[in-house]
């Protein structure tokens, strides 16, 4: 489904892809890196074959994308890294499962059901939700709870803009999100590895925060299926599992909603899941992270409080014990 967009900003304002790739390539100084893989087919160590994944052969380009706020000046990871290393259990639990198993997933037509404590609940089509807004590019850090990280040039809209439309009521203290539940389209859901559908939630303040975005693209292109097409959250100061993918339901609720990973392992994953080097996962340290795409002989990078977004979000949690509220 093509969204006809008026081009209000010239394409030349958008950093060309070749510049990204050059910056990233420069950082890859080891034979173990996959820079060359941008244009070649890849067989992953499990013996499985990948379709040639090149940015040029990627998804459709998005028109009229403007540069958004809060972008880091760190070099983004390659298209290949971003689209072949994914935690998306709806398509399998291995990192290379989603790129292979989400090939046939059709993210359009897509509807989102909005409900709960708001004045404008209803079922909205993807186009109705996204087309009123200017698409922004924001280059965010993503820190997985497994202690690796990437830098990703998302394209999307501030979640606040989207949510304000539904006029949340005064007692809407939290926003709940749900992913599609359809084992016929998401083969990984045939196993109850998680209690499907995937569920996440944010406090209303976190959801309305300027940093929080609803992403519909990456690298100036439509979001690939394995990255959560057609729309997913990006909450960059929290561990990646908070950035729920393939959203079909948004509910404004009064009580804190249950979230999938804290249901699966409550002692390991909490509601807040703020990136915090001082609070370890019970089974591994969170003090450092493996930077995807960096030289393999480089040491792990020290993890930053709130993934380096402390200036923007620390005030949301003043007075909150972040060790107890992990």
């Amino acid at each position, binding site marked *: 489904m093509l969204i006809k967009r008026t081009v209000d900003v010239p394409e030349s304002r958008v950093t060309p892809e070749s510049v990204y790739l050059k910056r990233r390539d420069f950082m890859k100084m080891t034979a173990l890196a996959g820079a060359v893989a941008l244009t070649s087919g890849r067989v*992953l160590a499990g013996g499985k074959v990948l379709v040639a994944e090149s940015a040029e052969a990627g998804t459709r380009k998005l028109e009229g994308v403007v540069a958004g706020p809060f972008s880091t000046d760190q070099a983004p990871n390659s298209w290949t890294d971003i689209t072949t290393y994914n935690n998306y259990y709806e398509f399998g639990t291995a990192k290379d499962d989603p790129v292979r198993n989400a090939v046939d997933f059709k993210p359009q037509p897509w509807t989102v059901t909005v409900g709960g404590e708001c004045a404008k609940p209803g079922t909205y089509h993807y186009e109705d939700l996204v087309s009123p807004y200017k698409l922004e590019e924001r280059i965010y850090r993503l820190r997985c709870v497994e202690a690796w990280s990437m830098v990703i040039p998302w394209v999307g809209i501030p979640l606040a803009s989207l949510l304000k439309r539904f006029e949340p009521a005064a007692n809407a203290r939290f926003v709940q999100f749900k992913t599609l539940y359809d084992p016929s389209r998401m083969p990984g859901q045939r196993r109850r590895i998680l209690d499907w559908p995937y569920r996440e939630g944010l406090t209303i303040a976190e959801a309305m925060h300027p940093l929080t975005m609803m992403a519909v693209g990456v690298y100036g292109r439509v979001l690939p299926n394995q990255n959560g097409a057609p729309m997913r959250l990006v909450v960059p100061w929290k561990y990646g599992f908070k950035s729920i993918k393939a959203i079909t339901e948004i509910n404004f609720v009064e009580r804190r909603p249950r979230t999938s990973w804290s249901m699966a392992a409550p002692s390991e994953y909490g509601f807040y899941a703020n990136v915090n080097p001082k609070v370890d996962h019970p089974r591994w340290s969170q003090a450092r992270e493996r930077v995807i795409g960096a030289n393999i002989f480089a040491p792990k990078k020290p993890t930053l409080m709130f993934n380096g977004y402390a200036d923007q979000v620390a005030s949301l949690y003043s007075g909150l014990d972040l060790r107890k509220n992990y």
Partner: protein
Amino acid sequence: MKPGSKSFYRLTKPLLFLAGLAPLGYIALCAFNIAGLTLGANPIEELLHQLGLWGLKFLLLTLAVTPVRRWTGWRWLVRYRRMLGLFAFFYVLLHFLTYAVLDQGLDAAAILEDIAKRPYITLGMTGLLLLVPLAATSTRGMMRRLGGRWQKLHRLVYAIAVLGVWHFYWQVKLDTLQPLVYAAILAVLLSTRMYYRRRGR
């Protein structure tokens, strides 16, 4: 060629040796991006995973020799057991070196902290340390010198296999399917040994 004859071993032992190195060869091809093979976006994680898996696989193969020998009557299998056990040690050692050198950058303080604070690493390190005396006493000379004590020492391989599978189980984030499969295979191998012990050799 008769199985168990000198010429039989002269042919098959080198072949088994090459087969034992083949996983490493494949991993190396992936590591150097040859023929479109790759370790993926997180090569250190993939290396750790593959080397650890092969260590476990060779451990289970080593433990399978005696049950298979008893079941089939093929006594000539036993002569491969040492090589299989040493390959297990080899891959576990590479797995540890990947962790210590690539993952931790030889940061001794960080490694010691991991061993102390992360139970799955405590188990893994214990398993590796227990493998060392087994590898060191794997020669025929050592077998002669230790006599009956050699048998007792090498029974540690059961504990090592349990530690290895448990280390794997506690390491996975959520999907315990693969470690449980290994645990099931180990359980079958250990129970067949107990079965034969009760029956009398």
